[in-house]
Structure formats: C-alpha cells, structure tokens
C-alpha cells in the first residue's frame, strides 16, 4: 500500500511537467500576444504608442524571446511560487488567484456537500422502493434538475430572492462588505449569498448522483450476498447499510477526484450570471484577452488538481475496497 502510494505520487511529477509544456504552447498558439491586443486597444482609443515603449514592454515581459525561453522563465518562477504577472490586471497572478480560489472552494464545497446529502438518501430510497410512487417522483424531479440549464435556475432564484424576499443577490457579498476586511459580519453575509450558487450548482449534480446511486444500489441488491445477509436474520435496514449500500458507494468514491478540477472551471456560466467572484469567470477572461501567465497558471492548477483528485480517489478507493488494496 505504501509503495503503491509512493509510486502514484512520483508518477504525478512527469505528468505535470508534460501538461505544463503543452498548456503553455496551447496558450501561445493564437496569433499575436497580449501586447498586440493591448496596443490595438490603445490605438483605437486615440493614443499613439511609441515603438520604444512597445519594445521596452516586450523586453520587460520577455515576449521577444523564443517560446522555450519564455516557458523556462515562467516554470522556474512557478517552482519558486511566482506564477508571473497578469498583463490584464496589472497585478501578480498570485494575488489574483488565491482569493478567488478560496471563494470558489467555498461555493463548490458547499454545493458538493449539498448534492451528496440530498442525493445519497434519495438514491437509496429510490433503489429500495423501486417503481414506487416516491421513486417515480424523485426520478421525475431528478430528470427535471438534470435537464434544466443551471443559469436558468440561477436567474429564477435571483428573481425570487430579490423580488419576494428583498435580499441582495448576485455576487457573494453585499456591497457594504465587498471591499471590507474579513469579519464575522462578512462571513454571515457570505453565507447569506452562498445558498443560491450552492443550490444552483448542486441541483444538476444531485440529479446525476441520484441516478448513479440508485443504479449502483439496484445492481448490488440483486447480488447473492444480500440474500446471505438476509438469511442470517439481520434487520432489513442493518443489512441494507452494512452490505449493499456499502458496496454501492464504491463507484461513488471514484468520482470524488473529478470534483477537484471543478473547483476552478466548474460552473463558469453560473458564476458569470450570478457575478460570483470565483475562479471560473477569471479564467474565461484571461483566455479571451490572451493574458498568458494568468491563463497558463490556471491551466496548470487545473491539471495539478486533476492529478491530485485522481490520487485522492485512488487512495479512497483502496480504503473502501479491499479487493483493490490487496491486488
């Protein structure tokens, strides 16, 4: 088990190196760079840009150097914890990313927990009471949740909250707390805003998870060991949770890992609609404006999170399933 872990961790290093190279190249692929976009914008608004200024900026950012040199400068910086400079925001990428990441983490974790708490019991219920009225009701609700676009639910909830409840919605903070330093009041304010994205992002996930849980459990319920457990004289509920449910969550666990990259890229559209200060919209904007260091850092973070997420999944899987542990 220990060797397996070490092996898995070591495998991540070459994977990340390759991913960082590929992502850097991809970001550079579109014609021009941030400076050409920047110049074009300045010229449009009537400024004359002098060639020496362009050259000095080019030199400053190293944009005149070959791509592998640029990559080397960036990646060595990353290793020291310096992700480069965002042209668009005129701030170091570091400063931009971390606060956004923390808030994204809050939103996605909340919605993840929300959907698990909801999906798990409903899935179990639907499987055990298959073809009952309750099962059909939740199945209907689940498909509805799956089929409704998230931004639609977002708009609907915002309308209801604003119109009928008179709450300030959109974003994660009320205007008075927006720039304020962290305090108890600000946390409470955050929680008041958090529920909309939590419900919106959570519903789609919930609907999917209910189906997964229901099907997993139905598969398990028909297996012979369930009958063995029943023949021991166990209580129905005890039997259910000790055996089939225990086995039905195994495929569930393997999906935990995929949730991590969602922390950044997930729910971008919802974040734009709700104007949430999370990572999704920031990444979108960085990609649009060829803000290469910011975009590159995001892609690298996504890749790392995917690797880490998969690792976590594998470890969890080995913990819940001895068949994998002893292979």
């Amino acid at each position, binding site marked *: 088990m220990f060797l397996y872990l070490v092996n898995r961790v070591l495998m991540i290093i070459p994977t990340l190196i390759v991913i960082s190279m590929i992502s850097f190249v991809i970001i550079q692929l579109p014609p021009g760079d941030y400076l050409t976009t920047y110049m074009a914008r300045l010229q449009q608004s009537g400024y004359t840009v002098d060639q020496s200024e362009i050259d000095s900026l080019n030199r400053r950012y190293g944009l005149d150097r070959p791509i592998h040199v640029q990559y080397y400068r960036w990646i060595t910086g990353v290793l020291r914890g310096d992700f480069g400079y965002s042209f668009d925001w005129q701030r170091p990428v570091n400063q931009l990313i971390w606060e956004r990441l923390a808030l994204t983490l809050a939103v996605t974790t909340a919605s993840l927990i929300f959907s698990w708490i909801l999906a798990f019991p409903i899935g179990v219920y639907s499987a055990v009471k298959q073809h009952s009225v309750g099962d059909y009701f939740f199945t209907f609700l689940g498909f509805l949740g799956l089929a409704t676009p998230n931004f639609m639910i977002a708009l609907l909830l915002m309308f209801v909250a604003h119109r009928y409840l008179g709450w300030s919605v959109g974003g994660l903070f009320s205007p008075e707390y927006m720039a304020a330093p962290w305090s108890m009041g600000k946390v409470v304010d955050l929680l008041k805003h958090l529920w909309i994205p939590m419900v919106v992002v959570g519903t789609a996930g919930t609907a999917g998870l209910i189906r997964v849980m229901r099907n997993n459990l139905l598969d398990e319920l028909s297996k012979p060991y369930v009958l063995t457990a*029943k023949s*021991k004289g166990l209580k129905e509920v005890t039997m259910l949770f000790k055996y089939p449910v225990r086995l039905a969550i195994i495929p569930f666990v393997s999906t935990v890992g995929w949730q991590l990259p969602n922390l950044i890229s997930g729910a971008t559209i919802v974040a734009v609609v709700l104007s949430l200060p999370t990572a999704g919209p920031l990444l979108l904007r960085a990609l649009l404006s060829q803000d290469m260091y910011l975009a590159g850092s995001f892609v690298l973070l996504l890749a790392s999170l995917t690797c880490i997420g998969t690792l976590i999944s594998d470890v969890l899987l080995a913990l819940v399933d001895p*068949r994998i542990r002893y292979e």
Partner: protein
Amino acid sequence: MTENGSKNIIDVKDLQVSFFTDSGVVRALNGVNFAIPQGKAIGVVGESGCGKTVTSYAVLQLLAKTAKITQGTIQFQKRDGTVVDLTQYKPGSNEMRRIRGGEISMIFQEPMSSLSPVHTVYDQIAENLFLHKGINEKQARERTVELLQLVGIPKAAERMDEYTFQFSGGMRQRVMIAMALAPEPRVLIADEPTTALDVTIQAQVLQLIKRMQEEFNLSLMLITHDLGVVAHMVDQVYVMYRGRVVEDAPVMEVFYEPRHPYTRGLLNSIPKLRGPRGKVASIPGTVPDSYNLPSGCLFHPRCSQYIGEVCRQNVPQTRAVSANHRVSCFLYDETPDVQKEV
C-alpha cells in the same frame, strides 16, 4: 403424512407460491408437501426451474417481493418445542428473524458471490454470533477460530481477518458452512452447495456437511439437481417437477425402485461407467413454460409412459406405494379411471 408427525422439525403442507410479474402470474409451487424429521436429512432433487430453491426460500421467508405464498402451511417446531406456522409470520418480523439464522441456517450455491467481498471472514461470521448468541468481541473471536477449525480451514486464527476473495472456492464454501453453523441452528438448508465447485472439492464439502449434520444432530435439507449428490447424504429423497413433488422415497428405493417416469428419466440421465457406451440419455423436451403450464399431469408432454387422456386431463393424486414411498402418477392408480385410454 409421516407416521411420527410430531417428530418432524419442518412439515410443509400444500405449499403454493406464485410470482406476480408484469407479464402475468407464475405459479412456481403448486402444492408442495414434504417433511424433515428431527435429525434426519432429506434431499430435494429436480431440474432447474422446478421450484427447489423457491421452496427453501419460502421456508425462510426470503422470497422476492413479487412472490407470495398463496396457500399452505409450514409447520416448524421451535427449540422450545412449540410448533409454529412460518407462513403466519411477516418476512421482516422479529420472530421470523430469530428463526432465520438462529434456528434455520442456509448455505448457498455460489461461494464466490454469496459472501461479501468487502467484509472480513471474521466480520461475517461474528455478525451471526452477535445477532443470535449475544456474546462479546473477545468470545466472538475465539468462537470464530473454533468454527473455522471445525470446518477444516488451516491457520484459522490468521485467516479469519482476511477477505473472502483471498480464499479458494472450496475454502469459501467452508467459510459459508462455518457461518451457517455459528448460531448453532437446528436445521440446515443447503441449496446446491457444491454445484459451483470442482469435482474433487465437491466430495470434501459434502463430507463436511454430512459430518456436521451428524455431529450437531442437524436436520438437513439438501437441494440439488444431481441425484448422485444425494446418494450418501440423505435419508429421504423428494423429486420435484414443475412446482410439485412427484415422488418421494427412502434414498435407496429411489435408486433401485424408482416409480415415477420422471424419476426414472433423471436416473437414466446419469452417465454410467459400466455398461454399453453411447449417448447419455436425457428426458425429451424441456421444463414447461411457466406462463403456460400443460393441463393435467404437468409431466405428460415429456412422459415416456404416457397412458392417455387421463394424464392430459386429470391431476394425479399422491398415493403411497410402500411405507415411506409416495408417487403422483396414474400408472399406480387402481381406480378404473385409468381405463379411459384412447
């Protein structure tokens, strides 16, 4: 039916079970009668789909949700001597749960899939001990080692903390037997316990079951499709066909004096070592479609000794041909009905 009725630990009379499915009602058991005398072994033999397994599940009330016992009684003599009718209990009731496992244990066919792959052997055996014996952790560990040693698992103390997939098929079936014996039941139902095992292992597992039955004075119900399996294992054999017992007799009489054409067919289909070479005999046709049962004697379309309209129109009654030998077939009918030949 048996002369010393009170000594039967299980006495099943006219048991009828139907499955209510979307495509119709399937009558799985059409009036099954059998009895297990205290401390004796019976064998239930028949082709797949004849209702052997359904019968055993009905006894333990483990039938699928779509199945219902529509008629009949299952008299069970409890440890304290009182006789109860198991069909009167709800499947999930406390009374039924105490009997299930506690008094009647079951061994299943597939030792691979009938044990949980994510719980240790100790966990699965001890569960039975906690449930029916109310003992503590330390006692349970000691008892589990004893049980595993009893069924012949080497290094039991180490192996009980392993998972079932680390055991071979035969060893898993031994674990299964240890698990079934843990609550010290009085009846053991073994549903095709050796079908999924290698032939060499089969004999060992059967011997183990026999030894346990004798050692603990268990009443055994051995379900199998293989007449060869019951030969040295049981006292009385029940031959089932399409949800009915067509013949029951002491084991040696079944082999030497089979009466029912179906029993004879089953015996003929056992390949023999001696005698002329040739194709292994089989019974023509297949078990009839459950939704569309033939009229009269359910076996008549496949019967080699079909004697005419009477087989097609009437249901044969069960009649005794000797003390413990009963058969349901018009061949043994003395009434003049038989003369109604075409």
